[in-house]
């Protein structure tokens, strides 16, 4: 064990160095976890507040039982030792005691269950919502559809906006590292929001701690949950059900805004959406499409195929030098629309986005495809 003796101090020293080295200035995340947070995030809905109180109530009871039970145990350990000359007693049965410590815990459990029941019923009551939003989980981002109420018809994707460089430790991490998105869900304050969840591929879970909501999103089925945020602000959450390799990288951000701001946001969003509804028959140049395609690639493809286009050997094919990318364009359009093996079908992207990203891959890295441009109209035709 000569090595063992030297190993421990060395390890501790190494650990200490790493600890001090890693303490880059992190501050509390607004609407997310605080540094070294010990308890639930501050609740902003009545349900989240109930959960907070329930947990305190349970903790109180548990700590009381803990102190009582282990007080007795450690008293016994200290006093009833052979080394102190304590002789063992001979009792080993008492029906009265047995019945007592069956009934008392039962009553305590009832005391715990009663307040919880009220909250369970409240959480399940998704009726009379002011606004209904459908959250669709997909590998690895969220889609929001405003189904009912003010803002009806708005639809957009919401994906991680943390730059890949921060994840790969090539750049300093921001305060909202990993819990920030490009397009947050926006809802008005003090309105009952019903979230309908579903999924495209595997099970995801839509959860925001401060709102007291967590609901699995199940492919082929819909489930619902609700919240009524009582404070304007930004609240952050995550996908809580293992959904594949980028599970850690599909966060949720909810912006709770005043009624006026919400109306303004709806107006802007609706206008923007109309403008964004591109004419699929427009003819683009290679440069225009490739520029647009780079953004589509960064948002959708980079996780598997990598920024270098080299993919991950054995898991995700390289696009750089790929036969599909350099071959006839129909094949690549078909692959994007229908998927293959681990490659999902990208039908949910617009014609222009698909055309753009294909054009981008055909002209990027070392690729010089003969058919170096795909127009949105061709994608539209291939969809039929």
């Amino acid at each position, binding site marked *: *064990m000569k090595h063992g003796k030297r*190993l421990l101090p060395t*390890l501790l020293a190494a*650990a200490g160095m790493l*600890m001090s080295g*890693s303490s880059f200035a*992190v501050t*509390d995340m607004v609407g*997310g*976890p*605080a540094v*070294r*947070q010990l*308890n*639930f995030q501050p609740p902003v809905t009545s349900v989240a507040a109930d959960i907070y109180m329930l947990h305190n109530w*349970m903790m109180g009871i*548990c700590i009381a039982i803990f102190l009582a*039970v282990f007080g*007795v*145990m450690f008293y*016994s*350990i200290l006093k*009833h*030792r*052979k080394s102190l000359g*304590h002789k063992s007693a*001979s009792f*080993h*049965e008492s029906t009265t005691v047995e019945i007592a*410590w069956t009934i008392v*815990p*039962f009553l305590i*459990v009832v005391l715990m*269950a009663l307040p*919880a*029941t009220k*909250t*369970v019923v409240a959480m399940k009551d998704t009726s009379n919502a002011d606004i209904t939003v459908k959250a669709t989980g997909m590998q690895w981002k969220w889609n929001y559809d405003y189904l009912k109420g003010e803002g009806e018809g708005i639809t957009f994707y919401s994906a991680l906006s943390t730059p890949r460089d921060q994840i*790969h430790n090539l750049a300093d*991490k921001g305060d909202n590292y*990993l819990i920030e998105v490009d397009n947050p869900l926006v809802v008005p304050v003090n309105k009952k929001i019903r979230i309908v969840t579903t999924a495209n*591929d595997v099970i995801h*879970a839509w959860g925001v701690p401060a709102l007291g909501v967590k609901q*699995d999103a199940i*492919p*082929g089925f819909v489930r*619902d949950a609700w919240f009524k945020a009582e404070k304007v602000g930004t609240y952050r959450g*995550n*996908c*809580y*059900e*293992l959904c*594949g*390799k980028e*599970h*850690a990288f599909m966060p949720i951000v909810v912006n709770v805004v005043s009624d006026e701001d919400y109306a303004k946001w709806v107006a802007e969003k609706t206008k923007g959406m109309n403008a964004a509804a591109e004419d699929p028959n427009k003819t683009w140049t290679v440069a225009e499409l490739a520029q647009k395609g780079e953004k589509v690639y960064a948002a959708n493809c980079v996780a598997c195929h990598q920024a270098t286009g080299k993919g*991950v050997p*054995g*898991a995700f094919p390289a696009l750089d030098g790929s036969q599909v990318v350099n071959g006839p364009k129909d094949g690549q359009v078909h692959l994007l629309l229908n998927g293959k093996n*681990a490659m999902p079908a990208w039908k949910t992207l617009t014609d222009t986005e698909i055309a753009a990203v294909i054009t981008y891959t055909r002209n990027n890295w070392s690729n010089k495809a003969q058919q170096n441009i795909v127009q949105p109209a061709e994608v539209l035709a291939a969809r039929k």
Partner: protein
Amino acid sequence: MSTTIDHAHGHSDGHDAHDHHPHGWRRWLYATNHKDIGTLYLWFSFTMLLTGGVLALGIRAELFKPGLQLFVPEFFNQLTTMHGLIMVFGAIMPAFVGFANWMIPLQIGAADMAFARMNNFSFWLLPPAAILLVSSFLVPGGATAAGWTLYAPLSTQMGIGMDMGIFAMHIMGASSIMGSINIVTTILNMRAPGMTLMKMPMFAWTWLITAYLLIAVMPVLAGAITMTLTDRHFGTSFFNAAGGGDPVMYQHIFWFFGHPEVYIMILPGFGIVSQIIPAFARKTLFGYASMVYATASIAILSFIVWAHHMFATGMPVTSQLFFMYATMLIAVPTGVKVFNWIATMWRGSMTFETPMLFAIGFIFVFTMGGFTGLILAVTPIDIQMQDTYYVVAHFHYVLVAGSLFSLFAGFYYWAPKWTGFMYNETRGKVHFWASLITFNVTFFPMHFLGLAGMPRRYADYAAQFTDFNQIATIGAFGFGLSQVYFLFAVLLPSIRGGEKAADKPWDGAEGLEWTVPSPAPFHTFETPPVVK
């Protein structure tokens, strides 16, 4: 092969120094002796414990800092999945079967297990299964990365590693079922004259109940993963909504297996602790009958609580309430057990050798896991905590500080009977304190991470969670080193030699196992002892 076995049996009357059993590798490959098979099980499970431990250290190393340092996320998911599968099916379950093989015949005064050759088969199924499981890391796409629960439809997306995992679990399941049939038959038919069921040692009782649980639920798991297999390859749609199936049905089936499974991994531990506490308190176990009834109640209740693992899938309010109430009810018999242990210690004449330390450590830390279990049973709190590190903390408190500590306690308690040598007491104590402290350093901070909302199975996390993750990682490496210390400083030396163990090394211990010499000879109780 038949001659060898005949040989071993034909001379079963000649024991002591003239054991006519095969030697060398044949002794182990053709083993039909419960003690040899018990030893094989224990070495197998310890190997798997170290394997699973290395994977866990991989996980903790990646999580030392935010950002991706060592592994790509898909490999990280393989680590978490395989760590779970290996620890549950490779380490904890076979370890308890090893204890059962060694101790149940000795405790009930039987000459061997009821089905000696089936016993051989149940063990020798395990190494191929383990090889299949571990080697799936090497195939294209790697090992399964769907989490140890293998939820559909994520499990249908995986590569061939998933199929290897499914087959490995089929084989391990078959092994468990055979082992359980063996244990039930042995206990019900081969007890020494006079040993009525209600005179049976607690370890045998808890294993009898556990074996019934295993026979009931292992086929359910086999069904779930077979459906996954046919969904993957034969065009069925059990778990695919597009074909009329339901992904959530997988979870119902899985957890109908999975919840009894967690009691399968703890009830024999309760049995071990119920043997050790009276031995070192020098006082009869308090409330023997109520201990038996409590164990049976826990087992029965375990069949009606499964959906508490699934509160976030969304279910009718009545189901949520039912599963919440049923789950909280389990606290009552579990509480009874803890109270009985403490009542056994009360006014005893205690000494604190390593088995007792691990048993007390078990009660103390397992009870903390019990409290967090009670908190998680409350549906609204559970929904807030679902799939966060709080759950990770909870089940490691009951599985590591629970099952694993009880296994260590049992090792220190019975190893003198196995090896004929006393382990080194000081080193045993070092192992205990190192394990207890580093365990808590690893898992206690995870409660805070979970409360603050850090999701589990994440390869990367928000920078605000850094400090607690670093503490956990340091603790985990300490815990790993403690087990290496156990192997080299305690286990191996205690096999090679040391102070000779008396037939009954613990003055307060009771039971038939202490009436045979140490080390226990190859054949014991050829003439059944009479229990008064």
